């Protein structure tokens, strides 16, 4: 892509954002598989609309299609922020159906892996075309410095999207929020447990501040 085309696209994106300020922001929930993205999406949706977004599971790639919960109104400090939450499949560069064969038969495992690959491709496409901001969810009990995380954060930064990093699963004893803060010091990291509902006030304060 040439310099002029890059410049034109950049100006166009900035203009689009300026004129769409009154529309609900589409906030994509991204991160690796099993970080707790759907648990968080459900927690937010249930807290503010009463409905869940999708099924949760310990099996990787439970979420195989991006799912959207529209018009989630979050009220903080007398102001209301409206967002559309887009829960996406965990991003990865590889999917092996044999990972699922302990939990299901081969045919179901192949179907699951095929759906997972379609979902990841769709999530990448949406990231380039269709989200206004990103909540990046990491399992704080796992090492955050992986190629997928570094690559995804780089892609998000290159698109100049506002991004909040959520250090999930702080209820686990192996959790280390500092490890995540040290890995991505250029971004705000918010600790939480989506499963236990821990620290959700700070989560909502930051969503309102970043995406309002």
């Amino acid at each position: 892509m040439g310099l002029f085309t890059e410049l034109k696209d950049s100006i166009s994106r900035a203009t689009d954002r300026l004129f769409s300020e009154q529309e609900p922001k589409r906030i994509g929930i991204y991160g690796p598989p099993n970080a707790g993205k759907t648990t968080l999406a459900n927690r937010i949706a249930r807290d503010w609309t009463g409905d869940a977004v999708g099924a949760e599971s310990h099996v990787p790639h439970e979420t195989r299609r991006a799912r959207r919960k529209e018009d989630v109104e979050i009220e903080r400090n007398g102001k209301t922020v409206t967002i559309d939450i887009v829960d996406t499949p965990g991003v990865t560069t590889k999917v092996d159906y044999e990972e699922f064969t302990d939990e299901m038969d081969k045919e179901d495992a192949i179907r699951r892996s095929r759906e997972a690959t379609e979902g990841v491709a769709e999530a990448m496409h949406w990231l380039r075309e269709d989200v206004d901001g990103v909540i990046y969810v990491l399992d704080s009990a796992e090492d955050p410095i992986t190629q997928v995380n570094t690559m995804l954060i780089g892609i998000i930064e290159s698109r100049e999207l506002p991004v909040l990093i959520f250090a999930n699963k702080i209820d686990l004893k192996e959790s280390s929020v500092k490890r995540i803060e040290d890995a991505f010091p250029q971004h705000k990291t918010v600790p939480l447990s989506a499963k236990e509902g821990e620290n959700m006030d700070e989560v909502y304060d930051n969503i309102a501040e970043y995406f309002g």
Partner: protein
Amino acid sequence: MPKATNADDSDAPDGVQIDLISGERMDGMATMEKIRMILDGVHDGNIVILEEGLTPDEESRLIEVTMAEISPDEFNGIEIETYPKSETRDSSLLGRIMGSDAGEAKLTVIGPANQIETLHKDETLISALVSRN
């Protein structure tokens, strides 16, 4: 384009082919040409090393195309490793408009997920174990 070794070809030499692709070779290529070249090499069981890496947009498209090509018992994806970004990144206005990685050289290693395993990575070294499957 480097000659590919077909992993299924019984006449092929017993070994792992490594394609080291210069930045100069990548310069004139469109995004999809680069991705095709990388994935064709990886499908053949090769390890592809890019002297100057990919832009974030190209990385995003590489993941997307890789997902479309995964198939049971044949190809289960890629491993990709890149040196961490330099601390001295371009933060000028032009740099931000062009994307934060514009002009930043970073060596990238890409291989078949079932054959490559990263043993160690830091700012100056990527150490990978490649198995012959």
